[in-house]
């Protein structure tokens, strides 16, 4: 499998995982391990920054894992920049997953504030991974602003509905010069595999693992699906059948 490089760091696993919604930190820790992931996102708002022994952090920190603090909870670019600065201080990393969703119901990202915040954070030296709508034009604008990846959603966050935005994701993958990480809405390993077969560079999964009957086994299942999907993409998928036709009405003028 080809390597994935983001912000100068090489990732061997193309499965990124989130840390919300687990029934215990201990279970979360085992699921992260089973997933084989090297990028784990964590909400700034969940961390007790006064306490270096914060229980959640203790369960995540491993040398092979890149922490990806996210700005979940912020409502505009100003708040996002502040959250990113706090994250850099707290975790000693320039990586930031930009999540700006002023809408508390569907948690849909605000494209205008996200673009503004990306422009500012890139200038401040952050490695910015913005969570966004599956909007191809927005993706190009973010790329031009210096985003390290784009993270379009497959379906509204937490819905487990799979690749609802399939057509748009296809366009984004075709056009992008930065890695495309499909984020949000992937509910089953088959969804992740499908995104990878389309040529996504990575996927981010949280809810589908956290709320599974057995999160640890589900994490491993996602890991396999992501590898299978990527391998299939790199191997070159076979064609769908074309119907043969004996006559040649369109090209007979060339005879």
């Amino acid at each position: 499998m080809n390597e994935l490089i983001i912000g100068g760091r090489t990732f061997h696993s193309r499965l990124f995982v989130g840390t919300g919604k687990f029934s215990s930190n201990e279970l979360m820790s085992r699921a992260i391990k089973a997933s084989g992931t090297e990028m784990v996102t964590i909400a700034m708002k969940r961390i007790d920054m006064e306490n270096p022994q914060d229980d959640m952090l203790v369960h995540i920190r491993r040398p092979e894992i890149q922490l990806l603090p996210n700005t979940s909870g912020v409502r505009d670019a100003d708040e996002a920049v502040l959250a990113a600065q706090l994250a850099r201080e707290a975790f000693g990393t320039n990586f930031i997953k930009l999540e700006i969703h002023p809408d508390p119901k569907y948690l849909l990202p605000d494209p205008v504030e996200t673009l503004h915040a990306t422009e500012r954070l890139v200038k401040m030296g952050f490695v910015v991974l913005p969570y966004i709508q599956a909007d191809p034009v927005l993706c190009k604008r973010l790329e031009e602003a210096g985003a390290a990846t784009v993270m379009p959603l497959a379906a509204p966050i937490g819905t487990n509905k799979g690749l609802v935005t399939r057509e748009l994701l296809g366009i984004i993958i075709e056009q992008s010069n930065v890695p495309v990480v499909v984020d949000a809405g992937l509910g089953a390993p088959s969804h992740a595999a499908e995104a990878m077969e389309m040529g996504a560079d990575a996927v981010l999964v949280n809810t589908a693992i956290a709320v599974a009957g057995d999160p640890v086994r589900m994490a491993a299942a996602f890991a396999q699906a992501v590898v299978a999907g990527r391998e299939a993409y790199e191997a070159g998928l076979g064609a769908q059948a074309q119907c043969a036709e004996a006559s040649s009405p369109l090209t007979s003028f060339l005879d």
Partner: protein
Amino acid sequence: MFSEELEKYDWEETSRKIREKRPADVERALGRERLTLDDFMALVSPAAAAYLEPMARLSRRYTQERFGKTISMYIPMYITNSCTNSCVYCGFNRHNAIPRVILTPEQIEAECRAIRQLGPFENLLLVTGENPRDAGVDYIEQALHICRPYFNNLTIEVMPLASEEYARLTRSGLNGVVCFQETYNRANYKRYHPAGMKSRFEWRVNGFDRMGQAGVHKIGMGVLIGLEEWRTDVTMMALHLQYLRKHYWKTRYSVNFPRMRPSEGHFQPNVVMSDRELAQLTFAFRIFDHDVDISFSTRENPRFRNHIATLGATSMSAGSKTDPGGYVTYPQSLEQFTVSDERTPAEVEADIRREGYEVVWKDWDKIFD
């Protein structure tokens, strides 16, 4: 810059890969919604010759989805044949003993009026030889100002310029730039373009990046069929198109593949492309890139143009004169290439309509510039 990307592709290796494509590769490419460059190679390979009919069907479908049943019309206006290059295949070669003409502002305006008499053309292609001293950017800019009142869409086909120069011309009403790389074979490029600015492969091939950086609205590309192995050359052009789309995503693109005929002049083409092959190439480009404008000039004969109009082509010229002042000023001077379609614009329009297609004269308004 594209020259760095191009270095990753070895000419011989690419040619070999195309030759080795099998029917299974062609079928895989035809079954895909988004094609890779490897798929494109399969579609222009000898193996795809047996798939001409399904390729035509697919090409027609994609073209109609994106463009409807329409053909956009344009007309070239040559304003000078003065040229400092000595391209071995070109009538404007500086060693050719022909009268050199640089049209005056009054003559350019007379040509504009003459073209408007020919038909309701709104898309004008201004063409010059390459003479930076006597017909440089100032001259081109002046020509654009003269033509602007007569046409809504102005495209130039001139020497490659610097990015600031493209930006300057865009401010002067320029809508598009056409530039033919002629061949992407870097090793042999100089054989055909031994002197003048055109002998600089990199300056020319990176000109498209400069157009993109300057925000040119539409970029036209082209390979001259007859110099090098055409399958390899058009594959490099497909790579170039793919690269440009990724980097300059607000720009529209067109492709051209003029083919040289053995009968044309003193230069004998190294490769001769058949009608079947030209059709195959057209279909391959459309299946590879659903949105690209595929243009056919009057180099091609009426019968071929009438058919290809419904199978993948999206723009055509008509009534063209390929010599400076050819419409009214110097109606008898030497052509850059031989025209094979002598029909009037009205006849071309009638033929296209007979195929069930609409002719579009105007699809831009200068108010948007």
